[in-house]
């Protein structure tokens, strides 16, 4: 798998929450033309923040190349709905959708749906269950299930539809549940959407590493980030892509980053404060360790300016960035092989 090609060019993602819902088209087009590979949409209970998955869906048809990847919570949302919504996002974006799995430890989110608060390791178990339901439902239609056979009058081949028959494991900490299936939408264009999650949620008794395609890695400072990327990779193995998380505050429009950073919110992520040239060097180094880097700009329009005029062109010149794939899928960008269907009866003979 391509993740082992450590020194190959990587991809860059940008978090677009700063665009809100009013300037979404402008922002995602600017990110795409700047050469970003992935746009992410954060979710969570923040005043004025619209649903991330719908913002990603809106961004889908106005773009051609950039992947659109929303955060979707797994604890207080219905796995059946999540699976269908994400599959639909894949259709409206032409196969450029992904999923950042979150597990909200949020008293507000729990109270809003009248459920008791989920905490600690139980969060990872909720996430693992939702990912498993999502993946089974995506596979519940084989790729060629819609046959439109006029002679027999059959629109679908029912042998190519499958029940997901998911049940939460016996040691499930919360209220156990089951999901029958099949999905109500045919298999997504990518078969399986790439699934991303925070590294802190994955491995060792948490979400199994083979349930996700990539992890998001955070460190307290930019200096520690590369080392953390190496540690996580050692912990989870080569089958999981590693994406480094970085806040950026840049010198821009005559204002020093150090001055601008005073008003930036504390996020717990590594923060780069300085010039575009300095960031270019940092990213160049980071992309040698990580498969990709996700940038969280302090002020989207300000940083996006510097990033598109200075940082990305120079990274491209140095060969640190993967070329964008016109009309490609998110899986292709990530270097993932075509997703096999766990229920497929035809590809590997007649065995079930």
């Amino acid at each position: 798998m391509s993740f082992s090609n450590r020194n190959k060019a990587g991809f860059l993602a940008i978090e677009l929450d700063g665009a809100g819902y009013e300037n979404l088209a402008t922002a995602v087009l600017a990110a795409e033309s700047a050469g970003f590979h992935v746009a992410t949409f954060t979710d969570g209970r923040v005043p004025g923040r619209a649903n991330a998955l719908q913002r990603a869906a809106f961004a889908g048809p106005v773009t051609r190349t950039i992947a659109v990847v929303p955060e979707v919570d797994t604890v207080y949302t219905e796995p059946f709905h999540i699976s269908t919504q994400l599959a639909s996002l894949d259709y409206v974006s032409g196969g450029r959708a992904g999923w950042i799995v979150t597990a909200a430890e949020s008293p507000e989110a729990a109270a809003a749906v009248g459920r008791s608060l989920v905490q600690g390791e139980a969060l990872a178990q909720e996430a693992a269950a939702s990912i498993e339901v999502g993946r089974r439902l995506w596979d519940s239609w084989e790729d060629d299930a819609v046959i439109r056979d006029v002679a027999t009058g059959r629109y679908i081949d029912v042998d190519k539809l499958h029940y997901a028959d998911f049940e939460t494991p016996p040691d499930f900490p919360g209220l156990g549940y089951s999901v029958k299936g099949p999905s109500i939408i045919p298999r997504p264009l990518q078969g399986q959407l790439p699934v991303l999650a925070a590294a802190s949620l994955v491995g060792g008794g948490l979400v199994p590493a083979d349930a996700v395609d990539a992890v998001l890695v955070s460190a307290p400072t930019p200096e520690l980030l590369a080392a953390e990327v190496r540690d996580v990779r050692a912990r989870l193995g080569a089958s999981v892509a590693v994406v480094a998380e970085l806040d950026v505050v840049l010198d821009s429009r005559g204002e020093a980053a150090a001055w601008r950073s005073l008003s930036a919110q504390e996020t717990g992520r590594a923060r780069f404060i300085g010039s575009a040239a300095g960031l270019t060097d940092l990213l160049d180094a980071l992309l040698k360790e990580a498969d990709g880097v996700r940038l969280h700009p302090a002020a989207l329009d300000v940083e996006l300016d510097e990033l598109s005029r200075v940082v990305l062109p120079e990274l491209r010149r140095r060969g640190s960035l993967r070329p964008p794939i016109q009309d490609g899928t998110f899986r292709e960008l990530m270097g993932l092989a075509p997703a096999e269907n766990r229920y497929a009866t035809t590809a590997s003979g007649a065995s079930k």
Partner: protein
Amino acid sequence: MTRDIFQPSGQIQFGIFFQGVNSGTIWKTAESGSQTDFESFRRLVQTAERGKFAAFFLGEGLRLREHLGRPHALDVVGRPDAQTMLAALAAVTTNIGLVATQNTTYNDPADLAHRLSSLDLISGGRAAWNIVTTDNAWTGANFRRGGYLDHADRYRHAEAFVETAKRIWDSWETPTGPARRVLHEGQHYTVDVAPLLPRSAQYRPVLFQAGDSPEGRDFAARQADVIFSAHPKFDNAVEFRRDIVARSVAAGRGANAVQIMPASEFILAATDQEAQEKKDWVRSLQIGPQQAIAYLEQFWGRELSSYDPDGPLPEIDPVVEETSETRGSGFHGAKARQLADQWRAEAKDKGLSIRQFVTSKTARVDATFTGSYTAVADHLAEYARVGAVDGFNISPWLVPTGLDDIVNHLVPELQERGVYPTEYRGTTLRENLGLQTPVRSAESVQVP
């Protein structure tokens, strides 16, 4: 005083209903496109917008229809999630309303209200919610709550749900804040939420409702802006209007407060005769021989493939007393044996084969407008004149080209008659439907 007297607007509007799982959409011809590709949706919604349609509707399915214990193979099946698709369509349209059918039983009120607000804000005030309910455990098998609701409870539950959503949307002191916390403690769920999103350009999503029982009509008269009705035939439409006006006045709302848009199908051509021929062709493709047999199997509860679709109805009896609800919408609860006797007599009486009989049962007889563009336009102008309906919600029998003749030929005829909009009135759905800004619901309203 005029509040209690209904006044016709003299206009009709159109909506389009992209159905998803159904037997009315023809998939067997060369022109039949994908039911899931974004391109199908984009083309239909942009055609509708070119024709100044008020709204684009998407249905919802939460479990695949089944037939004799397996997914039903013969009809169109598989569809995208309504709100996700509509958010994407918001990006490629500017004026048309975007209506998501969403179930009150398998959603949480705070979550659904938030997502509908999101769609409303993303689309610049064009979102609507077509409220539906379900109570069947078979659908519940896909959800954490399972089948938790009794049939008798479903409207009470739905109304508490809608009231809670309205209170979330109404919780803003000013259009941008601050919001009051909304609390609801009821039999089925507890909500404690600080709303996050401000009012949209149309204040809050427009509410559609489709229930037709007396409880459903009262629910709509109390809560809905528009009823997606099942009564398109002129006399029935006038009668339904009378009934809804009475119910909405009784509910303390104005006589014009609730609009009515019946589900309908249009089969049009240059002349009446061509339209009739087209109708036969459409019907033959909607109900093929296998569909005719499968339709009876749904009621007989047994395999009937040895029967000739062009022969008489089966003489054997159904194996079930009451058709199982595990087959999806539309087929549950019928008294099978009684129905079989009745149908055999009816088919024999009219000399109909299985296929002819099923076609007569499944075709939306009342809902179909067949004829030349001018004749149908004249007929619709009469609806507008008396205010029988506010519009029609059209299910195209072909995707994605099914609106082309309506937009290219029928709409201009209606515009010439002065009964159909030539421009959008505004940019929000509420403006385009001519609905009033909602009166803010009282904070004290607490539905148990």
